[in-house]
């Protein structure tokens, strides 16, 4: 069973643009490069001013200096040299997308996102693009065209044209922009997009439209039908900490936090509530770790080892409400880890549910005390941590 991980499957700009190109969305001419020399050749093949864009997954690369221009092959070389290998918000730049510089008349926004309330895709479009669209929506809602797409019908070409019309376009531009909007939707459907957007979608000086930037986030539950990205999804991305990466590989839902109470629970809600209780009692959680409702002994052991190996963790708080998971198996997993890792860090175990007595007996034999109440356990864990 797949477990939700800390991140979704975000594509690099150049990957999203390759898909856009396949679907017939106009994009700037461009080349992906990995060396300054390639950047120089890219400039020459494009034959004019270029923009060099760091291919990273973190947001805000522009403000962080990850997007720069070059007016000559030499400049392209030196800019590429500066960008490649640098870090943007902690993410190393391994590739650049070198593109022709577009003559911008206006920057637009167009995108589709899963809407929880309407249980459908919502479209969002605006003639004020190139900026944070949520800000535009808040500041100038009249500049936003939005609506829902009937999931059974899909977005029709004529609805896409209606959106273009509401953005104020007519004639050939309306038809072209409508086609781009329709294709964005087609990509969303084809790639199980949680979010797809072109921001900015540029209206050029000659009146045509070019997707100057593209973002596509794939629903990671759908990756089995997108084999080309499935393998990459298994490789931990640069946005994961080492422990998060290890947990992901083990199929655990794990998030690193800044505190010192290591937490393992079964079930997302119960685990979140355990974190909340730790905070409530004045402690700080070191992590979120949900083993899931059906974890095997191996997975429990892995969860415990990951949490205990976090140097920030001063105390382990485990909260299990056994249902399908049996308390005796949980207890055995705890004892196993204790034996393997030694008793360096104190463990506070809350254990109720299926085979509860057997589980408690096993823990008691190993000299580990357990609690019935998760609140008591959380309080004790915070006390331990403070004492430690």
């Amino acid at each position, binding site marked *: 069973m797949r477990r*939700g991980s800390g991140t979704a499957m975000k594509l690099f700009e150049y990957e999203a643009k390759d898909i856009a190109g396949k679907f017939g969305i106009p994009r700037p001419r461009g080349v992906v490069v990995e060396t300054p020399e390639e950047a120089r050749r890219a400039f020459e093949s494009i034959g004019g001013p270029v923009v060099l864009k760091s291919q990273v997954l973190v947001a805000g690369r522009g403000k962080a200096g990850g997007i720069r221009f070059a007016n000559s092959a030499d400049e392209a070389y030196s800019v590429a040299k500066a960008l490649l290998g640098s870090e943007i918000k902690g993410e190393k730049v391994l590739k650049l997308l070198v593109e022709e510089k577009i003559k911008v008349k206006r920057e637009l926004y167009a995108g589709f996102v899963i809407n*929880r309330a309407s249980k459908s895709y919502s479209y969002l479009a605006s003639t004020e693009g190139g900026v944070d669209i949520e800000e535009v929506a808040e500041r100038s809602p009249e500049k936003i065209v939005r609506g829902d797409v009937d999931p059974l019908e899909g977005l029709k070409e004529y609805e896409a044209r209606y959106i273009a019309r509401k953005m104020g376009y007519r004639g050939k531009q309306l038809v072209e922009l409508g086609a781009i909007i329709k294709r964005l939707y087609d990509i969303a459907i084809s790639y199980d997009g949680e979010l797809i957007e072109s921001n900015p979608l540029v209206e050029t000086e000659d009146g045509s439209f070019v997707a100057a930037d593209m973002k596509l986030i794939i629903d990671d*539950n759908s990756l089995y039908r997108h084999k080309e990205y499935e393998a990459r999804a298994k490789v931990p991305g640069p946005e994961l900490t080492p422990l998060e990466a290890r947990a992901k590989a083990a199929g655990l839902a794990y998030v690193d936090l800044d505190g010192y109470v290591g937490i393992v629970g079964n*079930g997302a809600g119960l*685990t*979140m509530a355990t974190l*909340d209780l730790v905070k409530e009692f004045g402690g700080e959680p070191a992590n979120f770790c949900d083993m899931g409702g059906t974890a095997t002994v191996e997975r429990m052991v892995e969860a415990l080892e990951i949490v205990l190996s976090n140097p920030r963790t001063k105390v382990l708080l485990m909260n299990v*409400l056994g249902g399908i998971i049996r308390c005796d198996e949980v207890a055995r997993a705890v004892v196993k880890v204790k034996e393997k890792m030694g008793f360096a860090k104190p463990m506070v175990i809350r254990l109720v549910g299926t085979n509860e007595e057997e589980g408690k007996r096993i823990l008691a034999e190993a000299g580990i005390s357990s609690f019935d109440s998760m609140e008591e356990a959380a309080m004790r864990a915070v006390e331990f941590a403070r004492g430690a």
Partner: protein
Amino acid sequence: MAVLVDENTRVLVQGITGRQGSFHTRLLKQYGTKVLAGTSPGKGGSEVEGVPVYDTVREAVEERGVNASIVFVPAQFTKEAALEAIEAGLSPIVLIAEGVPVLDSMYILAKAREKGVTIIGPNTPGIISPGLCKLGIMPAHVFKKGSVGVASRSGTLTYEIAAGLTRAGLGQSTCIGLGGDPLVGLSFIDVLELFRNDEETKAVALIGEIGGNAEETAAEYIIKTKYPKPVAAYVAGRAAPPGKRMGHAGAIISGRTGTAESKLEAFKRAGVEVARKPSEIAIKLKEALEGSR
């Protein structure tokens, strides 16, 4: 009475021959749920736990008159199974699987809406009307028949809170796991509406978590409709950072949307009793119910 499932619920188990399906069929039958048929394509004619297995839902409806379903097929096949049940008009349909692609859920839910069918889940422990019908995978012993309606986005946390209610002498009319995914069949509002019209339900417990704005819209609904029954709420995830999925696919703070603070404040504005610890739900509801007598 109870909502959505009761003693008249005639249950189909889709995917009954699988490990999970057969295991839970036993537990459902032990609980007294009327499990009348199962489906598993190509396994028709066999039996699981004494329950006849059919190849298609349509046969199960024709021959056994089932009217509700619990679906144990893996996430990848949930769409097809759900559509088969929807087309047959079964309701509610409980989708257990975690990891159903969100586009599949979107289509399932739209189709169910069109046909007037109730979907519970995906990624849900299911629904239980204690003493009448269990249509889920929850540990039955923590629940007791009574007058508190429970709706939750979580699994184990629901058991925790239900156990607390039961210990406090507060039984439950119906407990519904809405599901931990971003798109699920029932919202808090849908469930509040059901509980409002259910005579047996005297008070409601809502168990929310970070992500989306289902709690906020529920709070608005409570204000707008001057909701007539006491409501207490717990929201998990106050300690969660933004931008990270906390176990559930739906439990994520996106930008400024979906924080626990926003939800808790909305509930407070709506006069909902807000519990800071899971155990407080029982205490607050007990007070409210005693006060209302």
